[in-house]
């Protein structure tokens, strides 16, 4: 019978707790931002606003998975954080080279400049933490 592999350490303890706090903050910030943007003038910048919404969902998923922990939580958190990293890198680059695509800002514009570049640091910290707590 194969041994059930569990993450080697609870995801929400130690440095994980700092991550939960940071991800929680960004979940609130991104949700708030997309709610305001979509509530006030959704047609102004549909791409930027839908990306804000995607970011909000990713931050929420990552926060929840870190809190829940376990094998599935670890794996889903990994997927969410990876997408988040790709998102911040691609949106960050696009917001510099294709400014006309983004008439309004997203959380990830200019690599998260409006948020002290934390959106760029956060997925890297998240991946490092997931690697540290790897079940394998």
């Amino acid at each position, binding site marked *: 019978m194969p041994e059930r592999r569990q993450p080697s350490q609870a995801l929400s303890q130690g440095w994980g*707790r*700092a991550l939960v*706090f940071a991800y929680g*903050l960004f979940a609130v910030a991104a949700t708030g931002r997309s709610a305001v943007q979509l509530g006030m003038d959704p047609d102004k910048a549909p791409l930027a606003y839908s990306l804000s919404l995607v970011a909000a969902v990713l931050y929420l998923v990552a926060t929840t998975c870190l809190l829940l922990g376990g094998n599935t939580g670890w794996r889903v958190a990994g997927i969410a954080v990876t997408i988040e990293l790709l998102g911040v890198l691609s949106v960050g680059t696009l917001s510099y080279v294709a400014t006309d695509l983004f008439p309004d800002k997203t959380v990830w514009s200019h690599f998260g400049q409006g948020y002290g570049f934390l959106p760029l640091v956060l997925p890297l910290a998240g991946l490092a933490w997931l690697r540290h707590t790897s079940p394998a």
Partner: protein
Amino acid sequence: MNPWLYGVALVVAGVLAVLLVVDLVRDRAAQDSHFVGLAVLEVVMLVQLVGGVVALARTERDLEGAVFVSYLVTNLLVPIVAAFLALAERSRVGTTILLLGVATVAGLEVRLWDVWGGRGA
């Protein structure tokens, strides 16, 4: 809203941030003095929430009121959540959490200033 409130909030947050960075470098857990400082910050946030809502009700200008109030409420909650998480993690992790929280409060103070001045959400 009274500009002094932003100033007081930013100074308290700034002093706390310096203390926290010093203890972070020394690899120390959050100290009692940090929590006292956080309590002071919390009182400022409470005064600011009341003052902000009153000022918003009195002003004739067209402001993004919902955003303004949501920032005020968030700033009231962040130090509390950070304090609880830091108490659960008595190491430099807790100190880091408090630093993140204080930085968030300072950042939102700047945003509050912008929104009150009518410079967008």
